[in-house]
């Protein structure tokens, strides 16, 4: 959280650094799409681990499977 007296200018610079839509989508728990290709330098697993750190702090009891997989249409 930002406690600076100069919150307005700080928030403007934050928007400069990151796409607001991406940040909002991430914080709302909605899937977000990373830039494609290795050239982007963003590793999806690193992003996922970072996301899950926050998720696990907020959701202390993640539902664990309590019944087997359903169905009998196995064709692949």
């Amino acid at each position: 959280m930002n406690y600076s007296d100069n919150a307005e200018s700080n928030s403007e610079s934050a928007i400069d650094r990151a796409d607001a839509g991406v940040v909002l989508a991430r914080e709302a728990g909605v899937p977000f799409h990373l830039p494609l290709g290795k050239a982007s330098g963003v590793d999806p697993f690193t992003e996922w681990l970072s996301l899950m750190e926050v998720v696990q702090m907020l959701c202390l009891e993640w539902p664990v499977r309590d019944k087997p997989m359903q169905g009998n249409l196995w064709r692949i």
Partner: protein
Amino acid sequence: MSNLAEQIREALSMFVRSGTEPALIGGLAVVAHQVVRATKDVDFLVEAEAADKVHAALLDLGYQCLYRSEDAANYVRATEGLDLLYAHRPLARRLLAQASERETPMGRMRIISVEGLIGFKLQGFVNDATRTRDLDDIRSLFKIHLTSLNMDEVREYFALFSKPDLLNELLG
């Protein structure tokens, strides 16, 4: 490293010790293909011949087997889950053989193709229509990979489950 990452690292080591080379499928494979969402689904496609060996190794690691058939198995250990699909049909064997290897923060692992992942997600949804998350994942994968996807292969999966209309709906 988080417990989740540690669980995956441990599973990868177990597969190496068991002499099998699985491929990542499920929600984490969706992440691998650039759609980052919250998931703790640890799912692997394993050659069917390795099923007994992997089963014994997972029990040794403290997992409890919830369910096991010739197609799939579900394991739990306290708050951790791990699911396996067994590749015994030609299609799954081909997808397993073609999985690409990648270095990850949890170690080196093989990852199913986007097309194959869409096929497995469709199979999951067809088997359990309450799994609408699978459809959301397919939509997200289409959204970012559409121009590079082998659509003939994707169409084959939707035809396999008699769902050509669903493909049009998801693309629409």
